[in-house]
């Protein structure tokens, strides 16, 4: 048996190969202790379905999203232009990423700076794999028959109109999808967008992630599914704050699917 492969663009280029898709890992996917598991789960799925992919590895840099949203346009463009130079040098055509912030920035904001790629979020990518019958679902697993609720991330939902793909992925598993009161276009932010992830919130009477976690817990779901690294952190913190980490878990869509595939 072979091990999982994580080829880089540089390695592939050295062998005159071009992957079908670039997996954009993102900073959380690279550095966040908890979220690295999502990156690994997604890579396992890519291996399992025999997808021709590569990552940039050490050549990847932050898309610049938090800098731009915090107002530092100069820093954003420095990051963006440098990334675009790297991607264009490798003649990247298609990008998949698990981070809605990276997804939004590369898809919508890089074209104005000379970076034109087909960009899809991993929820859409996973849905396609399921639709095309490329993944074999065990249908059993630890989630069987359990209640799962999906938290819409703003940069996937309202920002880009992707509401159904993540739900289709969840529905493909043998689970019960329950909706929160505020969902889809009315989904409540986890509190981390717009560079809030990188600073303490302004004074108020409550933290946003607590408000959202309470709503998620009210559904009675034992699993809160997310499709965004920041949402994962915020909801996990919320569940801990409510002392529910023993019976409620927060997982990414890729982890859900990988677990169901038994990998």
């Amino acid at each position, binding site marked *: 048996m072979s091990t999982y492969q994580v080829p880089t663009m540089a390695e592939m280029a050295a062998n005159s190969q071009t992957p079908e898709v670039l997996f954009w890992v993102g900073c959380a996917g690279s550095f966040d202790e908890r979220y690295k598991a999502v990156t690994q789960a997604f890579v396992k799925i890519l291996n399992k379905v025999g997808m021709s992919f590569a990552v940039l590895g050490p050549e990847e840099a932050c898309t610049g999203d938090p800098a731009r949203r915090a107002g530092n346009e100069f820093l954003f*463009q420095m990051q963006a232009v440098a990334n675009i130079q790297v991607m264009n040098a490798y003649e990247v055509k298609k990008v998949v990423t698990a981070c809605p912030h990276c997804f939004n920035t590369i898809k919508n904001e890089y074209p104005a700076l000379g970076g034109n790629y087909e960009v899809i979020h991993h929820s859409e990518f996973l849905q396609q794999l399921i639709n095309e019958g490329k993944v074999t679902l065990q249908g059993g697993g630890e989630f069987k028959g359990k209640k799962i609720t999906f938290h819409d991330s*703003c940069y996937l939902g*309202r920002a880009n109109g992707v509401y159904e793909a993540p739900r289709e992925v969840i529905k493909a598993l043998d689970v019960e999808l329950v909706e929160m009161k505020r969902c889809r276009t009315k989904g409540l932010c986890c509190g981390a967008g717009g560079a809030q992830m990188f600073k303490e919130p302004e004074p108020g009477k409550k933290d946003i992630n607590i*408000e959202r976690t309470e709503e998620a817990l009210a559904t009675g779901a034992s699993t809160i599914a997310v499709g965004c690294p920041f949402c994962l952190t915020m909801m996990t913190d919320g569940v801990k704050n409510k002392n529910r980490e023993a019976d409620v878990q927060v997982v990414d869509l890729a982890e859900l699917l990988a677990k169901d595939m038994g990998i």
Partner: protein
Amino acid sequence: MSSLPQVVFVLILGVTGFFLFKRVKFLQRNIRLGKAATQNDQQADRWKTMALVAFGQQKMFKRWVPALLHALLYVGFLVINLEVLEFVLDGLLGTHRVLAPFLGGVYTVAITVFEFLAVGVLLSCVALLIRRHVLKVERFTKPELKGWPALDATLILVIEIVLMSAILTMNASDQLLAAREVAPYFVLGPLFFSGLVQPIFEGFSTESLVLLERFAWWFHIVGILVFAVYVTYSKHLHIFLAFPNTWYSNLKPKGEMVNMPEVTQEVNMMLGIPTESPSEPPAEIGRFGAKDINDLSWVNVLNAYSCTECGRCTSECPANLTGKKLSPRKIMMDVRDRAEEVGNSLDAGGPGLADGKSLLGDYISKEEINACTSCNACVEACPINIDPLSIILQMRRYVAMEESGSPAQWNSMFQNMETSFSPWKFSSSDRFNWSEKVKEEEMK
């Protein structure tokens, strides 16, 4: 018969027209205080958006109760204004119900429909007053609505109730006079709704009835004209501006921030990338981001004048919901207030924008803009596609790029990104370490 009423009517029309013209000029100039921006591509989509969102009120129906009450007002406003046409003709020609002979039975049907709508408008205004003052719906109790905005909202509803009552009073007394065969009144078919109030006036003498009918007629038409001028000072401007405002909607994905090409040139130079047009002198940059209304685009200012302060944005804002100072509705109200202040100052020969004040600082605080998660809930919630987020993000650009005044933790994040290409302080050489574990794992 004396032609004095006609002369008075023409004078009133003229005076109203004069004030309206002046106000429209004032508003137009204020909106143009914003920067030029072309947002008129994709015309077919723009017409469609306007038809669905403004004319069709598509986004209102996310909340059924206010949507239905509002729809009654809206349809009433559109249709009853047809009757105003006849009012104007009668006023100018000195006639009475000039269209009745031409329309015959249809006229009675039309008047019945108008009366039905008038009752609908009246009842929904009462319901809306109850929502504001008895039920105290939360979004109407926020701090930014204290004072004039609350009075403005109440006045609009009361004025509409009074105007609708005038129509019913007029028709009731008109038909009582017709039954008494007083010229020039004539019997129409049975009018159901004003028929219900007729008993109130039955005991009136003919002279009193004529006086009442004339008073109601004049009150209604003059009321409408005064209201038209009032609207230009009020949040109620949305009845007109919702249309251009939706036409100029942002049709791009909501997550996309507007690029700053003036920065790109410098970035390319820093990175040693040949720029496309190095011979051209850089266009006058002015200021990075927005400190005052003239740094915003004119569409942002149009947004502000179109806002009717319903507060759907604020009621869905995660920051506001959790007690932060930010309220997207207040952002829009502040932009409008500042535009009015600058406009009034300019008209009085004052310093205008150079009055030592600015939108950011004197109206909107950093605490407010820093609390935004850029989640687009406010943009999604707005029934007429106003974009408060665009204004917030432009102000953040000003704070970060002109003042270096961002919160300390953001400045650290900037620093991390500059040195290690990640918002966190990790070495970029460790970026690929996550793969080590999975590369050792046997594929199942």
